[in-house]
């Protein structure tokens, strides 16, 4: 399936990416080629086939909800690009 430049711009926005005009064109071409290739999946009859999301059968891994060792605040903040008074700084939201 071909993908249009407008669709690339729309999906880039959903992905929280900024893509300039030239890259949009290039991506639309490359991604279109990949999606056209992927269309060959439609040749496979999958009527009634259960989808697989994990290759190994596992049930939910339950555990007791108890406090364990955790990162101290200053360690958790150590890699923050911007921090203040023990918190992450973000642009104004409201």
């Amino acid at each position, binding site marked *: 399936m071909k993908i249009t430049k407008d669709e690339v711009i729309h999906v880039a926005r959903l992905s929280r990416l900024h893509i300039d005009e030239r890259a949009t064109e290039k991506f639309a071409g490359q991604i279109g080629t990949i999606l056209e290739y992927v269309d060959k*999946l439609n040749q*496979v009859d999958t009527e009634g086939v259960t989808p*697989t999301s994990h290759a190994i059968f596992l049930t939910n891994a339950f555990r007791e909800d108890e406090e364990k060792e955790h990162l101290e605040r200053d360690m958790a903040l150590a890699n923050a*690009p911007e921090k203040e008074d023990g918190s992450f700084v973000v642009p104004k939201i409201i």
Partner: protein
Amino acid sequence: MKLYELTIQSAHTLLKQKEISSQELTRAVLDRIHAVEKDVNAYITVADDLAMAQAELADKTISEGNISQLTGIPLAIKDLMCTKGLRTTCASKILENFVPPYNATVVEKLRNKGAVIVGKTNMDEFAMGSSNEHSGMKMTHNPWDLTRIPGGSSGGSAAAVAADMCIGSLGSDTGGSVRQPASHCSVVGMKPTYGRVSRFGLVAFASSLDQIGPLTKDVTDCAILMNAISGYDSRDSTSVPEDVPDYTASLTDGLEGVTIGIPKEYYAVGGLDPDVSGSVKNAIGKIEDMGAKCVDISLPHTEYAVAAYYVIAPSEASSNLARYDGVRYGFRDKDRSDLMEMYRNTRSEGFGPEVQRRIIIGTYCLSAGYYDAYYGKASQVRTLIMEDFKKAFENCDAILSPVTPSPAFPVGENIDDPLTMYLSDIFTLSANLAGIPGISVPCGFSSKGLPIGLQIMGRHFNEEMLLKIAYNFEQATDFHKKKPVLQ
């Protein structure tokens, strides 16, 4: 023999006999790195001081009479496994200055056994690529021919082992990222069964496919590292609570009673290089000579594996990589006027083109209106691929195939043609989709002197069979003893 040329096993013997110290060995490896790094470019970070301090500690442990098979052995870690206090970049600008506050479980296991971490190896950004050309940091070169790619995404780990810039290393394999570079660099590389090795602290690319595995100079070393890293971990809810055998116990002579499956579809793949098919056929002949029985098998959905993979892997990646938002860690764009703009600028400047391409493909495949047609369909085809293997393993114990359709290609050849690059993963990515283990062992060289690997795949949690076959093949050949000439 130079100290840096030692294997894990041979270095361990010398350390145990106190003929060498870990500090001498580690120094030799670090000197080797500094001598050839300008040609190979295998490392993002070389941890000289940290490594020497760990070596000193290892020597002290050894002098106290405590030695494990990994005590004092210098190893390299792919730069997407977290190392506490040591920068972990995933070869991405977005994590350029990230210093993890904790160790990945595999790193902790290696350190608990006294291994020395010499550095963090280069890779395709976030493990997305088959050539290392998509690293946001540097381009690793193939030690066998510096004009060619080392393979990817664990290209730095494979090149470092091949060029004796470490004694062994860890990589990760989402669609062939351990086996393919191992094949291109003439080293041994294993992707264990999904769930065999904890993914805690492994930066996620595609969570249902990712698995950590060793890259080593021979099969014995592979078994030693598998012993060290395998096992259930409560911090990874997908790790499997199965007993871990002693993998070195499967390194025994003789292949009588072993049945090998030869999948006809793999040998009908277009573009299969005659040197590769020739070497693999010879290898199969050798394995038959050692007592194994060969049978033809069929994996009928092989031709759909690349398509299914390149929907599922980018879909999972688009979700996993949503966490890079410039807030808690990593790069952040300076503009802080508006939250949305901050996210978008941060991610566009921080991620390289291949990562952005895959995020867009994944987001598209998961978006409203397309989910069933792409992700849903690919997940159903994945089931059929798994069933193919299940049926095949009713009639054989292991499957033999090439690792890649051709030997390492020249740098730059496929860089603007992502689909061609993706198609070269045809032999490896089915194992990730099915969750089964696979190993690449050196099985020859092309007419141009480029390494060729043999892939052995097996049933879930039957790494022992792969190691047994690989070990017997290695004993009968000397491809693994050949070294690239550097300097």
